[in-house]
C-alpha cells in the first residue's frame, strides 16, 4: 500500500516489517517519532529509557537474547551511548541490532551540529544513510539483514530533512524471523582483554567484507547522465543535486556511508570528466576519495556549516537560480519563546530578579535564556547543569555557593542529572539544585519519563519520587515549591542559597500544554489602574504586551497562571474567575 510518511515514520514502519520486537530510546529532535510511531504497533515492545546509553544497552540485551532490536536517538544522544557502541562493534549481535541516529544540520533544535558519520568510522560499524522515506523504510529492513549476516550492529543515519520530510513509501507485511536460541558464548560476549583481543581482528575482517559488499550492493548506485560532471553524494544532498542537475550529471549515490567502496569510486571517477563531492557537514566521503589519490572538489565549494539547498548547490556550480522580489522593511525576528503560563517562568523571574548565576540544561527551559528574563549563564549538554554547578562552586568557593544555582528539567534530571547530584552529595559542595519538574519531557513533544507515572503507551508505570530519590543520594534539604507562587519561590531560593549544605528545590507544576491540565480563564488588565510601569513585561510572557501605553493581556493566549498579577503594584490585573 502507498503511504505518505515522514522519514521517522518510515523507519518505524521498517522496524515493524523487519520483525523488530524491541525498541528502547530516549527522545531527541529530530529522532523522537521513530520510537513514538513504532510504539503504535502493538507487535513491537517499545519503551522510553532514561537515557541513550541505557536504551542502547537494552537493545543489546534483546539482541543477545536472539531478537531483532533497535534504539533511536539524536546525534548528541549517540555521544551518551558511545560507550556501548564501540564495544558492541566487537561483540557483534545475535538478533539483528539497528541503531538510528538523527543529525541536525542547521541546528533547528540542537546545541551543536556534529556529524554522526564519524562515529561509524571510529566504531568500525556499518552505517546506512537514506535520502527519503522510501529508502528509510527499505534501509531499515536491510540494516537488520546486514546486522545478522555480518554479525554487527548497524547504524542508520537520518538528518532533519529526511527524518521530518514526508514522502511516499510502499508498505508490506511484517515478517518476524525466528528467535535465535540463547547460547552462552563467553568468547564473543565477555569483552575482557583476552577475548577482546581476539575480537578486534574479527572487526577488521568484517570491515573488509563490508567493503566488498559496498562494491556491489544496490545500497550504492550509479545514475548515469552526462559524464562531463560526476558527483558523489548522499542523503538530502543527493536530492538537491538531482533537483539541480537531473540528467545533466552522473551521480554516484551513496546509501552505505561506512565502509565506502574503493574500486567502485575509482571506476566512477574514471568515467567522468570532473569529479565532485556534495555532502553536508564534514568532508567524510571527500577524505576517503582523496585518500584513494583521486582528484576531486568538495569542501572548496561547499561549506561544512549548516544545511544545503538546491540554490546553494546550483550557485556552487555557477548555475543561475530563480529571481525573487524583496521588501525593504526589516522584518523583526520571531524566536521561539516559553509559552504563556509556562511554569518555568515564575522561577526564572525570581532568579533573574535576584541576579543569581544559573547553570542551565537542555529542554524547553533553555528558552529562559531569552530576553527579557535572560536568566541563564550556561547550557552545555544533558545533565551538565548539576555537575557543572559543583565545579563552579568548588572553583568559586563560598561566594559562588551563595549566589549560584542550576536548573534542570525532570526528564533531563533522570537522564543524567542524578549522577551529578550524587557527586554534589559525595564531594560536598553547598550547591543548590533546582529541578524544574513540569511532569513531562516537554521540548521534544510530551514524552513520558520515569517521573511521570506513565509508559510510552500511556499505561500506568512506576513513578520515581524525586524527593525520595534526592534524599536517598544524601541530600538532606529537599523542598517543593509552586512556581506560580513568586513569594514562595523567592523564599526558597534565598534560604537554600544560605544553607551550609547541598539542597534541592523542586519547582513543580505540570506543563500547561498537557491535556490533563485545567486552564483558568484569561486574566485582564484594568486600563484605568495600569500605570504603565511595565513590571508585568519583565516576565517575557507572550500574552502580555503594551498598547497605547497600557499593558494588555491577549485572552487567546493567557491561561490564567496569575504570575503577572503578583508583580502588579497597582492591582491593575484582574483574575478571570475560577476554573
Amino acid at each position, binding site marked *: 500500500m502507498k503511504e505518505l510518511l515522514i522519514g521517522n515514520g518510515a523507519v518505524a514502519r521498517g522496524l515493524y516489517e523487519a520483525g523488530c520486537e524491541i525498541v528502547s530510546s530516549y527522545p531527541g529532535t529530530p529522532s523522537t517519532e521513530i520510537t513514538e510511531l513504532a510504539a503504535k504497533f502493538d507487535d513491537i515492545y517499545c519503551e522510553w529509557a532514561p537515557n541513550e546509553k541505557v536504551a542502547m544497552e537494552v537493545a543489546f540485551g534483546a539482541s543477545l537474547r536472539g531478537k531483532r532490536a533497535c534504539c533511536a536517538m539524536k546525534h548528541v544522544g549517540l555521544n551518551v551511548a558511545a560507550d556501548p557502541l564501540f564495544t558492541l562493534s566487537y561483540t557483534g549481535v545475535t538478533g539483528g541490532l539497528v541503531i538510528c541516529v538523527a543529525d541536525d544540520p542547521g541546528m533547528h533544535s540542537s546545541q551543536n551540529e556534529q556529524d554522526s558519520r564519524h562515529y561509524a568510522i571510529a566504531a568500525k560499524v556499518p552505517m546506512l544513510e537514506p535520502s527519503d522515506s522510501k529508502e528509510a523504510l527499505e534501509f531499515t529492513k536491510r540494516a537488520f539483514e546486514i546486522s545478522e549476516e555480518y554479525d554487527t550492529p548497524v547504524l542508520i543515519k537520518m538528518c532533519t530533512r529526511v527524518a521530518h520530510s514526508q514522502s511516499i513509501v510502499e508498505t508490506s507485511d511484517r515478517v518476524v524471523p525466528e528467535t535465535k536460541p540463547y547460547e552462552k558464548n563467553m568468547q564473543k560476549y565477555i569483552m575482557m582483554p583476552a577475548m577482546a583481543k581476539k575480537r578486534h581482528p574479527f572487526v577488521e575482517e568484517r570491515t573488509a567484507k563490508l567493503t566488498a559488499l559496498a562494491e556491489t550492493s544496490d545500497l550504492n548506485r550509479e545514475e548515469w547522465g552526462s559524464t562531463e560532471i560526476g558527483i558523489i553524494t548522499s542523503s538530502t544532498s543527493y536530492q538537491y543535486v538531482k533537483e539541480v542537475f537531473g540528467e545533466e550529471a552522473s551521480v554516484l549515490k551513496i546509501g552505505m556511508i561506512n565502509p565506502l567502496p574503493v574500486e567502485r569510486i575509482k571506476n566512477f571517477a574514471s568515467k567522468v570528466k570532473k569529479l565532485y563531492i556534495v555532502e553536508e557537514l564534514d568532508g567524510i566521503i571527500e577524505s576517503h576519495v582523496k585518500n584513494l589519490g583521486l582528484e576531486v572538489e568538495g569542501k572548496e565549494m561547499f561549506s561544512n556549516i549548516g544545511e544545503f539547498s*538546491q*540554490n546553494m548547490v546550483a550557485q556552487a556550480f555557477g548555475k543561475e537560480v530563480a529571481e525573487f522580489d524583496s521588501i525593504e522593511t526589516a522584518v523583526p525576528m520571531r524566536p521561539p519563546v516559553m509559552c504563556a503560563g509556562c511554569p518555568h517562568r515564575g522561577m526564572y523571574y525570581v532568579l533573574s530578579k535576584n541576579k543569581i548565576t544559573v547553570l542551565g540544561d537542555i529542554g524547553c527551559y533553555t528558552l529562559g535564556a531569552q*530576553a527579557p528574563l535572560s536568566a541563564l549563564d550556561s547550557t552545555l549538554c544533558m545533565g551538565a547543569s548539576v555537575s557543572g554547578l559543583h565545579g563552579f562552586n568548588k572553583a568559586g568557593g563560598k561566594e559562588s555557593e551563595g549566589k549560584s544555582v542550576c536548573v534542570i528539567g525532570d526528564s533531563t534530571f533522570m537522564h543524567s542529572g542524578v549522577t551529578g547530584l550524587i557527586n554534589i552529595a559525595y564531594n560536598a559542595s553547598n550547591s543548590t539544585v533546582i529541578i524544574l519538574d513540569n511532569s513531562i519531557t516537554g521540548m521534544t513533544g510530551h514524552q513520558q519519563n520515569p517521573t511521570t507515572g506513565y509508559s510510552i503507551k500511556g499505561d500506568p508505570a512506576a513513578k520515581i519520587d524525586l524527593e525520595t530519590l534526592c534524599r536517598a543520594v544524601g541530600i538532606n534539604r529537599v523542598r517543593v515549591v509552586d512556581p506560580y507562587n513568586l513569594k514562595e519561590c523567592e523564599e526558597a531560593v534565598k534560604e537554600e542559597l544560605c544553607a551550609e549544605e547541598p539542597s534541592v528545590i523542586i519547582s513543580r507544576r505540570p506543563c500547561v500544554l498537557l491535556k490533563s491540565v485545567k486552564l483558568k480563564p484569561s486574566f485582564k488588565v484594568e486600563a484605568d489602574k495600569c500605570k504603565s510601569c511595565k513590571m508585568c*513585561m519583565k516576565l517575557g510572557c507572550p500574552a502580555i504586551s503594551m498598547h497605547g501605553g497600557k499593558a494588555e493581556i491577549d485572552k487567546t493566549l493567557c491561561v490564567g497562571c496569575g504570575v503577572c498579577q503578583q508583580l502588579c503594584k497597582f492591582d491593575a490585573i484582574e483574575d478571570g474567575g475560577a476554573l
Partner: protein
Amino acid sequence: MNKSIMIVGVGGQGSLLASKLLGKLLMNEGLDVKVSEVHGMSQRGGSVVTYVRCGEKVYSPVIDKGGADCIVSFEKLEAARWVEYLKKDGVIITNTQQIDPMPVITGAAVYPENILEELKEKVKVDELDALSLATEAGSAKAVNIVLMGRVAKYFDISYDKWINAIETTVAERFVELNKKAFELGYNY
C-alpha cells in the same frame, strides 16, 4: 502539475495539519509528494515553515528562494518574512491576523505597520481575516482549514476531493467544523 507551496506561521497555529491535508490530497491525485516540516524548539511560538511539493517526480524536500508558487501565511508578518521564497508570478495567501513576536513585545523591535501594503506593491497578495472566519465556523483553531479553503481556489482539484481529504485527515468529531471552515475560506 508541479507545485511548490509554503505554509508559514507561528508555532502552535496548526500548520502541521494543513500540510498533512495538502500532502494527502496531492498523493490521492497520483502525484509524487514531499512535505518538509520542522519539529522541536522552533515550534514554541517561533516562526515556522512547512514546504509542500508535488509533481511527477520531486527531489528536494525544501523550497528555495524564488521557488514557491504559493505562500500560505497564517500571520501577516510571516508572509513578509518569507516573501523572497515566492516565484516571480506566485501568490501569497495570508491571514490578516497580527501576532507580536517577543522582540516587539519587549520593545526591542517594532511591528511594521503597513507590511501588507508594502507586500502588495511587490507581489500578488490574497488576504483574508481567517481568524474571524474560523471563529464563525466554530473555532479559532480552524484558521488552518479556512486558509486551505482559500488555497483550493488556486488548484485544479475538485471541491469534493478537498472535502474527502478533510474527512480522512482530521479527527471525526472535528470534521463538520472543518468542512464549514473550508467552505468559508473557499467562498470568501
